[in-house]
C-alpha cells in the first residue's frame, strides 16, 4: 500500500474546499486501544495526561488516521461532579455510582471546574501535549460528554428515565448544571488548542423517544454547539444506537458532522440530511473491527465508503463508535488501507 501523500490537516482542509485529495479522511475511533500501542495498562491512564498523550500520539503515528481524540471513558465530567468511577487495572473505567442517590440532593450539585475537579485537568494536559507533539499535522479533539448523557450519570439512567415522566423540572435543572460543566470543559479544551468532540450516548432513540430528545436533550445541545460555533469550531456530534428519528434535530441543534453508529443507515442519512451535514461512520466496532478478519474489515470499510462517498456535505470513513480496547492492529491498518486503496475519487470495485 502506498503511503499517504498528505497530512490529515492538509487532507481535511483540501477536502472541505473541494480540492484534490489522496484519499478520504478515515477515523477508526481509537480510545483505550492506544494503551496497547505503547504496551501500557489502561488503568495507568488514570490521572496521567502525559501517558494518555504519549499513547494517543503513538497510535496516530502507527495508523495515520485523520483525527486524534483524547478519550478514556465517558465519565470524566460526571466524576468531576461527584460520581464514583471504578478503574479496573487494565480495562476501561466504568460508572460505579452516580453522584446523587436521590434527586432531592440536587441542590448540592455544582458544575465542575475543569482546571481543578476530578481528572479533567489530566485530560486537558493530555490534549496540550498531543497538540504540542503533532498538532501541526493532525487535528486533536477532546471528548465532551453532552448535558443529557451526563445528567444520566449523575442520578443514574433509570432514575433519570423516571424523572422525565414524573418531574420534568428536576431533569431540566440537572441538565442546566451539566450544561455548565460541558461549557466550561469545552472552553478549557479550546483554550488548550483542541477541538471539542461531542458524545451523547443516552440521547439515542435506543433509550429515549425523539419527543423526549427534543424536550430534554436538544435545548442544551443547541446551547453547547452554539458556544462552540462562537469560538469558530466545527462540531462533530456522536449519538450511539438508533438515531434516524432525530437526525433532523441533530442538524437543527447545529451539528456540522453526524457520527453515526451501526444501528443507523449511512444511505438513509445521506438522503435525509446529507445536503446539510457531513457524515461519518459506521464500520461495526465489535462485530467487524474487534472480531472480524482484516479481509472482513476491508469489505465493510469499502461498503461504508460506497454508501457515504457521495454525501453532498462530505464523508469520513469511521468506526460506528469507539473501538474496543483489544481491537487487533491489523484490523485498524486494514481499514486505513482499504480507504487508501480506494483513493479519491474512489475507484469502484
Amino acid at each position, binding site marked *: 500500500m502506498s503511503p499517504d501523500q498528505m497530512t490529515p490537516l492538509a487532507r481535511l482542509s483540501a477536502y472541505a474546499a473541494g480540492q484534490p485529495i489522496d484519499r478520504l479522511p478515515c477515523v477508526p475511533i481509537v480510545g483505550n486501544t492506544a494503551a496497547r500501542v505503547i504496551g501500557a495498562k489502561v488503568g495507568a491512564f488514570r490521572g496521567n495526561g502525559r501517558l494518555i498523550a504519549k499513547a494517543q500520539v503513538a497510535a496516530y503515528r502507527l495508523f495515520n488516521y485523520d483525527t486524534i481524540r483524547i478519550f478514556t471513558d465517558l465519565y470524566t465530567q460526571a466524576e468531576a461532579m461527584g460520581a464514583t468511577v471504578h478503574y479496573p487495572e487494565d480495562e476501561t473505567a466504568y460508572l460505579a455510582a452516580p453522584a446523587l442517590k436521590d434527586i432531592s440532593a440536587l441542590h448540592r450539585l455544582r458544575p465542575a471546574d475543569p482546571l481543578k475537579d476530578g481528572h479533567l485537568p489530566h485530560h486537558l494536559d493530555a490534549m496540550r501535549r498531543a497538540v504540542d507533539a503533532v498538532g501541526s499535522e493532525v487535528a486533536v479533539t477532546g471528548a465532551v460528554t453532552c448535558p443529557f448523557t451526563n445528567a444520566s450519570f449523575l442520578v443514574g439512567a433509570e432514575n433519570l428515565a423516571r424523572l422525565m415522566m414524573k418531574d420534568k423540572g428536576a431533569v431540566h435543572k440537572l441538565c442546566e448544571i451539566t450544561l455548565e460543566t460541558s461549557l466550561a470543559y469545552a472552553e478549557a479544551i479550546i483554550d488548550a488548542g483542541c477541538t471539542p468532540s461531542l458524545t451523547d450516548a443516552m440521547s439515542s432513540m435506543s433509550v429515549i423517544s425523539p419527543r423526549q430528545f427534543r424536550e430534554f436533550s436538544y435545548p442544551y445541545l443547541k446551547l453547547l454547539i452554539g458556544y462552540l460555533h462562537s469560538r469558530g469550531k466545527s462540531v462533530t456530534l456522536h449519538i450511539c444506537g438508533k438515531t434516524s428519528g432525530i437526525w433532523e434535530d441533530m442538524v437543527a441543534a447545529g451539528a456540522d458532522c453526524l457520527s453515526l453508529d451501526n444501528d443507523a443507515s449511512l444511505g438513509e442519512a445521506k438522503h435525509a440530511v446529507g445536503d446539510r451535514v457531513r457524515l461519518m461512520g459506521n464500520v461495526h466496532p465489535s462485530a467487524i473491527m474487534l472480531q472480524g478478519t482484516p479481509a472482513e474489515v476491508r469489505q465493510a470499510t469499502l461498503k461504508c465508503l460506497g454508501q457515504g462517498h457521495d454525501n453532498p456535505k462530505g464523508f469520513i470513513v469511521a468506526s460506528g463508535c469507539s473501538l*474496543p480496547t483489544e481491537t487487533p492492529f491489523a484490523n485498524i491498518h486494514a481499514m486505513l488501507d482499504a480507504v487508501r486503496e480506494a483513493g479519491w475519487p474512489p475507484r469502484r470495485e
Partner: protein
Amino acid sequence: MSNVNQRLFQDLSDAVVDMDEDKAVAKAHEVVDLGVDAYLAIEQGLSAGMERAGVLFDEEEYFIPELLMCSDAMYAGMDVLKPHLRLDGVAEKHKVVIGVVEGDTHDIGKNLVKIMLETSGFEVTDLGRDIPPARFVEKAKEIGAGLIALSTLMTTTMDGMAAVIRQLTEEGIRERFKVIVGGGPLSQGFADRIGADGYAVNAADAIRLARSLVGVDVRVETGAAA
C-alpha cells in the same frame, strides 16, 4: 368468566399500559376484595398489559422511560396481588438467572429483559450488575435454573460471557444450562463463537428466545395449571 372479571383484568392491563401506578393498585385491591383469582388477574391483567407495552416498545411508540413506568405500575399491582396467590395450583416455573457481567454497570437492558421474563411466566433471579462469571454458575446450580441470561453494553466486558460458558464446560455441566446473551456490542456471530445457546437483539427477542430454548410455551403451560 364473568364480565366483571374481564373488565377488571382489562383495567389492570390498561393501568400498566397507561403507566398509572395508583390505578393498578386500586384495581388490584378490587380483585382481592371481590375474591377474584389473583393468578388470573396477574396473568390476564398486569402481565397482559406489560406485553402490550412491550409491543409498543417494539413499534417505537414507547421507549425505555415509558417501559420503566409501565413496569412500576405492574409491580405495584403485583405487590397487592402476590399475597393472595393460591400456591397449590401453580405449576413450577422455569428458573432464570440474569445479570450484567463483571466490569459493566449498565443495567437498563438487563432490567427490561428481567421484567419481560417475569411477565412471561419465568421465575427470575436477578444477580444485579458487575457480576463475576463464577457467581452466575454458582447461583444457577444453587437454584436449579435452566437458563442463564448474560447482559453487557460494553465491548470491554464481552469476554466475561465466554468465561461463564467455559466454567460450565470445565465443570462438566454445560448441557444442564441454556446460556443466552444480549447487549449493544454483541452479535449472533459473537454468541456462536463463545458457544452460547442464543443471542437476542432486544428484550422482546430475548423472551422469544428464552421460551423457545426451554422448549415450551411458558404462558400456556402456567395458564393451564392455574
